[in-house]
């Protein structure tokens, strides 16, 4: 918290431009809900916001956290250390005290953690505020559901601590809890008011945010999974199929709920193979469709994905990465699916892979993916990860009237058509959807066998050579058309950090931090993972070291998956990897320290 003390009597009110608040408890306590309210409030207050959460993989709940970073200026990561910790239990206190900045404030539920049990050394290091959250909540709303409502009570406490906009929060609470029973909203407001009006006599300090910078900008607040799903709808996708798996399921649930409003549908299938097959069938039906999964489900899809490459069928495959291999770490973050996304499957099977870097980027990347899939008649993998999928950010409301597109298939008759025309000047396949009359009477077939220009199977070595080249070259053409990456920071220096996917924010923040400390460091972000845009070699030439920052293992070659991919394009030993596999998002300081250490 960057604070500027204002000369007031106790408790003192400090002006701050940003704050990192960590809420720790059990998942059934509604931790995510408080975080969500805070994020949404920030969005409505023209502030930037980013969240981070952990979800236990067991359904019965378990320890869970939600971290919100609210800033009046740009927010690139969820924050390395918290300014404030709200701990519901003894175990949450113990597990998360270490994430608090020295001197930070911890509000704990004194019904669960006795003041006398707090070690003296902690009292010296952090500022403690005990509030009997559980019993005060029961007092405020009546003791029906045990533990119910204490999240909203705690939100009231935070509102007081940070001088949050109460009318806006009240409106958010009312919107959220207004349902069949008006009593529910009333109870929520009672809990909130009880928390807000609680005499925080022991609070060492109160805070006030400086006004947000995104003035006059209408913002929407959502998770990466939501943004991606809405992006697909905006792009014109009207059919999807999938099978449940964390953390991809949110996307399928949202599309299932929303697509019928647009005349479309989403199918829950018997498995991931059926779902990709169904999506491919619908794509052939004339309108690019979506399937997706996480972890093991992606492995199951690879055979059919290869068919889409061979048949040159547009398709969107969403891969929300989680820790692997096998069932791996279902609720942890990892970027270890890059190889399967780019190369998964047998044979030479070029396809497109795009890695969104933020919640907002999920929305626009989905639209781009659809456009690329259609223009180049190719499957496109949207490679996100558990972190980006579940975190909430505020971003400028898209100009929907402009971005929402209509991609209804054109079924008007044609004179003649060859899907795999080798003499077509752009070298790109376009399919006719079934139902399209071909006046010549020669109809195309789509197939996974090597084929001639009409799609009929061939064993001709010459045609295989030509068709393999055709499938590769159309994507080389795409590579040449992709926007060139730009350097964050000066174009020359000691160290260049390379990010992809969700590591963009923490990497850029690390660059800022290290530059402030006087280091000659910059970064470049690779959004279009496969094929890669041109221009990277020139950028790399400006630096002594190139470190690829990614959440996966360094492998046998001592470099991560993106590192390996880059080395295959630019065989330069100065490209090295900064990798890790602890299942947690990058800490800014961690990136900076490792980069400086490696460059020494």
């Amino acid at each position, binding site marked *: 918290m960057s604070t500027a003390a204002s000369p007031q009597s106790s408790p003192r009110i400090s002006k701050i431009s940003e704050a990192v608040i960590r809420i720790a408890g059990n998942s059934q306590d509604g931790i995510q809900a408080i975080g969500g309210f805070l994020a*949404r409030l920030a969005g409505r207050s023209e502030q930037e916001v980013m969240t981070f959460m952990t979800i236990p993989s067991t359904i019965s709940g378990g320890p869970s956290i939600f971290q919100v970073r609210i800033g009046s200026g740009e927010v690139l990561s969820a924050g390395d250390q918290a300014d404030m910790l709200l701990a519901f239990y003894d175990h949450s206190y113990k597990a998360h005290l270490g994430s608090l900045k020295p001197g930070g404030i911890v509000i704990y539920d004194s019904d669960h953690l006795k003041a006398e049990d707090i070690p003296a050394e902690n009292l010296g290091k952090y500022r403690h505020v005990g509030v009997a959250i559980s019993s005060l909540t029961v007092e405020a709303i009546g003791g029906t559901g045990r533990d119910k409502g204490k999240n909203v009570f705690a939100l009231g406490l935070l509102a007081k601590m940070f001088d949050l906009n109460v009318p806006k929060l009240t409106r958010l609470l009312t919107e959220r809890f207004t349902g069949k029973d008006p009593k529910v909203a009333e109870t929520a407001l009672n809990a909130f008011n009880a928390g807000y009006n609680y005499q925080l006599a022991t609070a060492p300090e109160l805070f006030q945010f400086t006004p947000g910078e995104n003035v006059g900008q209408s*913002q*929407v607040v959502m998770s990466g999974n939501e943004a991606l799903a*809405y992006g697909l*709808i*905006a792009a014109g996708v009207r*059919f999807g*199929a999938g099978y449940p798996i964390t953390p991809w399921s949110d996307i399928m649930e949202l599309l299932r709920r*929303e697509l*019928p*409003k*647009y*005349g*479309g549908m989403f199918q829950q*299938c*018997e498995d991931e193979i*059926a*779902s990709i*097959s*169904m999506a*491919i*069938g*619908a794509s052939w*039906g*004339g*309108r690019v*469709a979506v399937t997706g999964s996480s972890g093991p489900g992606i492995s199951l899809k690879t055979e059919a994905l290869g*068919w889409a490459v061979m048949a040159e069928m547009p398709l969107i495959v969403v891969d929300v990465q989680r820790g692997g291999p096998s069932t791996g770490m279902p609720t942890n973050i990892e970027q270890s699916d890059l190889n399967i996304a780019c190369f998964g499957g047998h044979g030479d099977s070029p396809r497109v892979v795009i890695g969104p870097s933020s919640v907002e*980027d999920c929305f626009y*990347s989905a639209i*781009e993916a659809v456009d690329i899939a*259609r223009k180049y008649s190719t499957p496109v993998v949207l490679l996100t990860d558990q972190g980006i999928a579940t975190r909430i950010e505020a*971003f400028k*409301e898209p100009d929907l009237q402009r*971005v*929402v*597109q209509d991609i209804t*298939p054109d079924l008007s*008759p*044609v*004179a*003649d*058509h060859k899907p795999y025309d080798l003499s*077509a000047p752009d070298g*790109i*396949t*376009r399919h*006719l959807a*079934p*139902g*399209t*009359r071909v*006046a*010549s009477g020669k*109809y195309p*077939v789509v197939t996974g*066998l090597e084929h001639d220009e009409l799609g*009929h*199977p061939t064993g001709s070595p010459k045609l295989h050579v030509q068709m393999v080249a055709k499938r590769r070259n159309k994507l080389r053409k795409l590579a040449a058309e992709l926007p060139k990456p730009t350097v964050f920071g000066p174009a020359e220096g000691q160290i260049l950090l390379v990010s992809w996917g969700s590591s963009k924010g923490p990497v850029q923040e690390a660059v800022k931090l290290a530059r402030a400390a006087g280091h000659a460091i910059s970064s470049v972000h690779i*959004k279009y993972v496969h094929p890669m845009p041109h221009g990277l070699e020139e950028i790399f030439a400006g630096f002594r070291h190139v470190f690829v920052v990614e959440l996966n293992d360094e492998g046998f070659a001592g470099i991560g998956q993106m590192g390996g991919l880059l080395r295959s394009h630019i065989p330069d030993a100065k490209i090295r990897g900064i990798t890790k596999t602890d299942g947690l998002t990058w800490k800014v300081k961690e990136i900076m320290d490792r980069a400086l250490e490696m460059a020494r």
Partner: protein
Amino acid sequence: MTESAILSLVSQRGPNTSTAPVAPLLDADRKPLTKKEISADHPTWCPGCGDFAVLALYFKLIERRKMLHEKITTVAGIGCSSRFPYFVQAHGAHFIHGRALPFASGVSLSRPDLHVCVFGGDGDAFSIGGNHFTHTARKNIKLTYVVMDNSVYGLTKNQTSPTSPIGFKSKTDIWGSKDRPINPIKQAIAAGATFVARTSATNPNHVLAMMEAAMDHDGFSFIQCLSECVEFYPGAFDAAIPRKGGVFNEVSKEHDVTDEYAAYKLADTAWPGLFGVYYKTQRPTKNANEQAIINDLQGKAAGLEPWQILKKNFERMK
């Protein structure tokens, strides 16, 4: 953060499509397709393979039904029988082994104007594709599925299939198969198929009658069509061929096709079993159920453009 560069909208027609103007053709002016017009590649099947007859009868069906050329949609998985779409001069898809049904379901659900016909083998349907068979049947997705059952793996040259009888000798069961075969009719009924029929490629009129009945059925229509592999299982179905001394017994006219238990029992008739429609019932199709959801939700969003529907959602996320 700013919006990323969005590529400009893409045209669906490119240089691989002849843009020469096409004269309109009224449905009334159309003549039924001839066999010549509807045949494509010469089939690659072995001479004498039962699959030829199934193809010829599909052509007959198209001819008799006066199907519009562009509406014929043929889908298959992998196997000798699954090469079917190459031989039909119409829109067709040759997908991967065992997954023709979900592919075809994607077409059927997204394109209600088409009737999709799926062809494939016993391995494709009941082994690698077994799971999809069950779920496509129970969801009652509107399409016709003809399994050309030769009780052997033909394309991979003579391995045991899920319908190979006990004692069948193949390259993978040189001592004779010991595994109880699948009874496709029972499998289909138990899975919830709403049209279940059995026929044999050696009886053309019967095949055609079953295909026509299947086409008329509003739902998942399944036909098990015995189709001999002369290469790896010659004589497999002689017991059902009268001119080879067998008997082609049809399901009796008295059988109540809506009686699930009676149909199931009938399916246990001793080899070579009975031919005809075993089971037929009317249940809402997946297609209709989905359309009902669409109608309901679209009714609520009446008069709104897609961007306005999305805008309403975004308003709630502020």
